[in-house]
């Protein structure tokens, strides 16, 4: 109750301040729109299907790119964690590559794939692959060895050992990495989409700029925040809660 009250007060104050600043007209409306203007832009965007299409296109891309990242990252991470040679050679490379902002792959992707979907997908994968890989590697190392031993002892080997033992055993240790990978994938996607006529949310955002329509710009920004938050807050939160219940881990407070 108290928490809800604080929540309402904070957002009401924020909203009030915004309205006040907009109504005072310190800046011209095309630079600083009112909340109503943004609301209207949102309504129009959904009414003429622009936003629906953009959301659909962007979500499809990020799901595909992120999915590929997770599969590749798990294989890579597991390989690096269980092979000394790979760890000593590739481990350092992976860490250093992570300091490269994913959009830096854009020029390379353009030359390799041309100005199309695949270039965007490539940037998304490069954005999230490394965090998933590093998380998997770390998770595999943190996971108590006894699970692997018990699994082998009970007759699991090869893919079965990975699927039924090593993967579930390392999940609590990699879920934060998976979450981070998602955040990177989402950011990389929007960035890449802003750079050409991609039909996605990034392009719609740039369209607002091209039309000098600040209300539309802010509306799309809100959409991007909301979508990222929904996935983070619903998908990953419930996954974490599920794991905590099973393992009996107390949630970090």
């Amino acid at each position, binding site marked *: 109750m108290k928490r809800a009250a604080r929540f309402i007060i904070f957002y009401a104050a924020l909203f009030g301040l915004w309205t006040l600043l907009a109504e005072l007209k310190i800046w011209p409306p095309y630079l600083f729109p009112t909340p109503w203007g943004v609301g209207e832009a949102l309504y129009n965007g959904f009414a003429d299907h622009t936003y629906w299409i953009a959301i659909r296109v962007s979500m499809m891309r990020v799901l595909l790119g992120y999915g590929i990242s997770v599969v590749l990252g798990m294989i890579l991470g597991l390989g690096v964690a269980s092979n000394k040679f790979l760890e000593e050679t590739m481990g350092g490379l992976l860490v250093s590559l992570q300091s490269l902002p994913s959009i830096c792959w854009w020029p390379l992707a353009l030359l390799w794939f041309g100005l199309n979907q695949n270039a965007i997908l490539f940037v998304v994968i490069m954005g999230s692959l490394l965090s998933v890989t590093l998380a998997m590697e770390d998770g595999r190392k943190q996971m108590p060895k006894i699970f692997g031993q018990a699994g082998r002892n009970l*007759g699991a080997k090869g893919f079965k050992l990975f699927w039924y033992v090593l993967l579930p055993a390392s999940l609590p240790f990699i879920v934060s990495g998976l979450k981070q990978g998602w955040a990177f994938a989402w950011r990389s996607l929007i960035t890449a989409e802003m750079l050409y006529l991609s039909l996605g949310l990034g392009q719609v955002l740039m369209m607002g700029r091209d039309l000098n329509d600040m209300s539309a710009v802010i509306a799309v920004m809100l959409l991007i925040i909301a979508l990222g938050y929904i996935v983070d807050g619903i998908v990953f939160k419930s996954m974490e809660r599920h794991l905590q219940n099973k393992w009996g881990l107390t949630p970090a407070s």
Partner: protein
Amino acid sequence: MSTQSVPQQFPIPGMDPSTASTNRRYKSLGLIAVDDSRPGTSLEIPKVALHDISLSYRTQSGERLLALDKINLQVQAGEFVCIVGPSGCGKSTLLHLIAGLHSQTSGEITVDGKPVQGPGTDRILIFQEHGLFPWLTVGENVEFGMKMKGIPKAQREDKVRYYLKLVHLAKFEKSYIHQLSGGMRQRVAIARALATEPDVLLMDEPFAALDAQTRDLLHDELERIWSETGRTIIFVTHNVREAVRLGDRVVLLTFRPGRVKSQFPIDLPRPRHLEDPSVALTARDVLAELREEINRSLEAEYNAGVKPHIEPGVSA
């Protein structure tokens, strides 16, 4: 030192004590699937045999350390053998070798006369703790080994129910591991091990982390389960009383390098209890010899800075 006798048979109420084969005796209870016609299960060939097992490894400071030195040991089918020794004698490592989770430097381990090559579900290891899978329910844990073997679902469910009943945990099939007490967890571990129907149960200080009352209770249960299922059990512990209370035979290992120092056949009648005077008396004999080794281990700890708790692959 390595001469073995057929384990002392203990009287089970209502059983014909003249039955010759331990296997047949348990089989007649209808509780186990010991197949006498299978090669190697006859009593002439030991269930588990260790021939000149040595293990050395490189410590972190780079020197080679001999952990196990030419261990010879034979365990008969249906026998309950306890291995005791000071910390650092490599007794846990020995179990890992038998389980096939690690390889010895030299020597050979055979089960039913066939050399051990890697892990196999005929030998299941029960760990001191944390060996259960926390992401699975109790029932799924017990089911795990059978699932890996590809046993059909309906059959697995029956077995899960049977073995959970055997360890008195039938009501907890749907619980998760963290919801159970330490003693219950070890019972799940025993049920999980038995459900894969191993010939040999390897128990690595399974009750060391439990409180005394729970441990007493589990001793009784283990003795009962052993006599009901007729498994061969190799049980590692640092607790001499526990070894004497449970074992047909107690094998004493020396401090590093681990060698078989002596063996004590335990002929006390079953069921036994930890506080039986005869158990205490026998334990005193074993302890007298063990004490020399403990002193040696303490000396080593004080002197050269050797850390006696390092055993390869055993610690996480």
